[in-house]
């Protein structure tokens, strides 16, 4: 089963890379072949994932290469299989969506290159999680970074897109450098890049080296995942890409970093680490979650808003994983499994609803040609399907029951609450504080998506673009519908998801908790402490809500007879209500901005020009609000300034003379010989 699916996947993606390039200047054929092949590849990937999750022993295959140290080695254990499944499920839905979405690029940008890179991107992500060799991993990691970079700069004629791409390119390579250091630490001790050797080193790593590997992995993978303060590139790069690619970047690519972290901490280190590792991960997670959602609230560009929410959700995932790591270091194996499982559950949930929401944002973009929320409005009438799917995504990301986001956040809450079992007072207090940060994050996310949905889809159209919007093509609706269905399934059927996730966490933490987690024949979830302790059942909640609603409807009819409804315009204090009188997105978040002004440091500029005759009448008024990008200002700008200053100084040695450069090479050689000799 696995070899066949693997082959289907490879063939699919390879065809997808090659075929679109062959059909030159025929965008329809390029579109069809590229995304059809990607769909085939993703189906193969789903097969690999499903088979890998159920297989008893990990599947392993290795091909030698002509390069020393490099082995094309692939290993499919449950962890890898889960991420392949996640990549492929999202990949399949996005491929279908892309069939409709890329049509608007016809004639503007090369569909062949776009389709080919799309496949290369999916293939490289799949290989990243399958790779069982450090060298090979870095190779495909780099391929993934490059493919995504070129996809980000698809609309390369726009200066801000180029800038976003360049920023991303730098940050991702800084990250790769740190990952390289992590692997070199392991290589230094064992002399091999094989993950198998990393897992079972001949002699254990010295303490300092272990710490170095921990920190470099956190920075390296964190730069890709977008943890605070390494997140600054993400809100530029993810929105700059075409929306179907944004969907993959935010939904899937950043998850490869989560994979990397779990692989290094739980697999390579075998879960043996001091408590403060987990605490750092937890703190970083809490900060990312809170700051991510806070900056998201202030964004009125729908795609940037979603990008900031990726920072938030990565934070939530790290809260779960961090709690798991803390438990692991205190030897509480089943709680460690719970935390890790909760984090991974949120990983797939976020992939699905963020993918869905980005597709929705893409649908709005293609219908209105703007990303500015203030120019939307009333779209629920024009685009009922998109609105419905976006609402499902919004409810899920706000973690409202009985959605999938609720299930995973509930599990994370529980693992943070169970901190009372840790024998250390500091952790006992810090973990519940983490939980309260998660609560704040959750409700701010709710506010943010109430804003996003309310301002975009409800009330009156706020611009000409929104008035003329039309529902998007069937292919795009099918793509979104598939993701929406997955959202609902992941929420209502945790009894199917939990055993699958348990297969991942069991070998990593050494204990299986699937039986403890499920009670009432799988209907209810209970955190390892038994049903008395706490339990939640999304199917029961779903039934409850589904029963009460018609009963309420019936009750209303019994008490008041049949509904007599009058449609009338909204009261506008005697004036005719226009869309300019509606509440705007900026106004909606104003109280939040004011309450958290220490974080936002907003500068508000209000200029009013009065009529000459009387100061009671204004002629013109301009309002500007600006949020201080703290991290850029205090962290990145000094680095950039410093780099430029150094570069200026170094210009002295760049005289442009060939002789001089030859001299440099000679000096370098002599120095090297002296050092090694």
């Amino acid at each position, binding site marked *: 089963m696995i070899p066949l699916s693997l082959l289907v996947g490879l063939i699919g993606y390879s065809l997808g890379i090659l075929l679109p390039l062959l059909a030159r200047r025929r965008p329809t054929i390029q579109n069809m072949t590229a995304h059809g092949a990607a769909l085939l590849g993703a189906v193969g990937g789903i097969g690999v994932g499903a088979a890998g999750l159920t297989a008893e022993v990990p599947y392993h295959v290795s091909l030698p290469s002509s390069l020393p140290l490099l082995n094309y080695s692939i290993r499919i254990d449950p962890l890898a299989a889960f991420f392949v499944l996640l990549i492929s499920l999202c990949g399949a839905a996005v491929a279908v969506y892309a069939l409709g979405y890329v049509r608007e690029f016809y004639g503007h940008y090369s569909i062949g290159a776009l389709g080919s890179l799309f496949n290369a991107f999916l293939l490289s992500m799949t290989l990243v999680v399958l790779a069982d060799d450090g060298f090979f991993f870095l190779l495909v990691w780099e391929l993934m970074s490059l493919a995504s970079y070129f996809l980000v700069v698809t609309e390369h004629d726009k200066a801000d897109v180029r800038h976003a791409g360049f920023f991303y390119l730098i940050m991702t390579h800084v990250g790769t450098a740190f990952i390289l250091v992590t692997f070199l630490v392991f290589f230094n001790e064992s002399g091999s890049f094989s993950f198998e050797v990393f897992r079972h080193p001949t002699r254990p790593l010295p303490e300092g080296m272990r710490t170095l590997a921990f920190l470099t992995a956190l920075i390296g993978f964190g730069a890709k995942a977008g943890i605070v303060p390494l997140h600054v590139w993400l809100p530029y790069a993810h929105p700059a890409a075409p929306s179907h690619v944004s969907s993959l970047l935010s939904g899937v690519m950043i998850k490869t970093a989560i994979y990397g972290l779990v692989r290094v901490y739980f697999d390579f280190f075998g879960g043996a680490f001091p408590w403060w590792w987990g605490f750092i991960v937890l703190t970083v997670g809490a900060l990312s979650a809170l700051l991510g959602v806070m900056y998201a609230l202030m964004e009125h560009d729908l795609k940037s808003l979603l990008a900031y929410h990726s920072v938030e959700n990565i934070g939530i995932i790290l809260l779960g994983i961090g709690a798991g790591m803390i438990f692991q270091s205190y030897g509480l194996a089943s709680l460690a499994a719970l935390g890790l499982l909760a984090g991974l559950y949120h990983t797939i949930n976020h992939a699905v609803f963020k993918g869905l929401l980005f597709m929705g944002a893409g649908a709005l973009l293609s219908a209105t040609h703007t990303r500015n929320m203030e120019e939307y409005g009333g779209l629920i009438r024009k685009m009922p399907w998109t609105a419905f799917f976006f609402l499902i995504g919004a409810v899920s990301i706000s973690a409202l029951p009985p959605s999938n986001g609720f299930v995973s956040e509930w599990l994370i809450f529980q693992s943070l609450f169970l901190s009372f079992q840790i024998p250390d007072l500091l952790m006992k207090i810090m973990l519940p504080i983490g939980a309260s940060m998660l609560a704040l994050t959750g409700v701010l996310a709710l506010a943010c*998506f109430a804003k996003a949905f309310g301002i975009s889809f409800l009330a009156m159209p706020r611009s000409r673009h929104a008035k003329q919007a039309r529902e998007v093509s069937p292919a795009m609706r099918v793509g979104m519908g598939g993701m929406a269905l997955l959202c609902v399934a992941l929420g209502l059927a945790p009894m199917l998801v939990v055993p699958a996730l348990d297969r991942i966490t069991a070998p990593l933490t050494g204990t299986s908790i699937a039986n403890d987690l499920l009670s009432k024949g799988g209907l209810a979830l209970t955190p390892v402490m038994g049903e008395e302790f706490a339990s939640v059942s999304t199917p*029961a*909640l779903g039934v409850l809500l589904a029963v009460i609603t018609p009963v309420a409807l019936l009750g209303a009819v019994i008490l008041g*007879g049949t*509904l007599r409804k009058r449609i009338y315009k*909204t009261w506008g204090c005697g004036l005719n209500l226009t869309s300019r009188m509606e*509440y705007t997105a900026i106004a*909606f978040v104003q109280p939040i901005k004011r*309450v958290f002004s220490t974080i936002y440091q907003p500068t508000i500029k209000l200029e009013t020009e009065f009529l000459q005759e009387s100061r009671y009448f204004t002629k013109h008024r301009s309002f500007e609000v600006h949020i201080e990008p703290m991290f850029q200002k205090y962290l990145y700008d000094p680095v950039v300034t410093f780099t430029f200053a150094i570069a200026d100084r170094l210009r002295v040695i760049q005289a442009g003379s060939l002789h001089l450069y030859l001299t440099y090479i000679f000096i370098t050689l002599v120095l090297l010989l002296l050092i090694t000799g």
Partner: protein
Amino acid sequence: MAQSMTLIILQTVVLLAVSPFIVGLIRKVKATLQCRRGASTAQPYYDLLKLFQKDVVVSSNASWIFTATPYILFASTLAASLLVPLFVSKVPLSFAGDIITVVYLLALGTFFLILAGLDTGSAFGGMGSSREAIVASLTEPAMILSIFAVGLTAGSTNLSTIVHKTALLEGIVTDPPPHLMALAALFIVTLAETGRVPVDNPATHLELTMIHEAMVLEYSGRYLALIEWASALKLLLFLTLLSNVFAPWGIATAPDPIWMTLGLAVWLVKVSGLAVLVGVIESMFAKLRLFRVTDLLGVAFILSLLALIFFYTLRG
């Protein structure tokens, strides 16, 4: 199974029947303190019946969200209330969700109410939605933390377990200070979540101050009736939480008809007492300016944090 169903239906009926009375009682208390006679405590029932029989007017700007919201709000609030023990310590639906679920079910209603406020295009609705969002954001962390502090004493977040164990004083390890701090925090949260003075004033329709009322300004007829009933349910839910989580004594610990009747009577006395307290507070304090609410909810957060720290440190 049959017994469980009976208990669920019984609880539903009791909740629906008692909740308007609590609203009427608070109004009566306020009237008495203002030296007015005030309307009868049965007035909210007449109001609801009247509203159900009236025509509804729906804005031409509104979408299906506006029509669906009253039902979603009502269903989610009732579902949350069914997870809370009233007169018997173990509710049959306790497996469906713990106290975190209650918080998030209420958030589901809030989410749709915020959307409905934006749906008609009226600036009042948007204003209410925006304010509701900030008040909810500030209450939630305090609420979760105070719940954790209480949950720790019983070693559970399951409401039935907390209430049952506290009622029997079984396996409870606590000292009064953290418990009282968490109680104070949850009381502030209650005032904020249910839109009472000093956070919001349910009796006002002044655009400068209203929060909840602004969101539901465009509702009429049976939709308004459902929303009002849901608000009453939410108030009752919080009062029940306060009384049964912190002082569950008197509640039936087994589904026995006699004890349950007694439990019902005790519960009624307790929530009525709390309702009187809410009425007194509403009469004694002025509504806070929106941006001063932050301080009040900050106090709630700090109190629950202290409750947590004291819980551990007092035990050594």
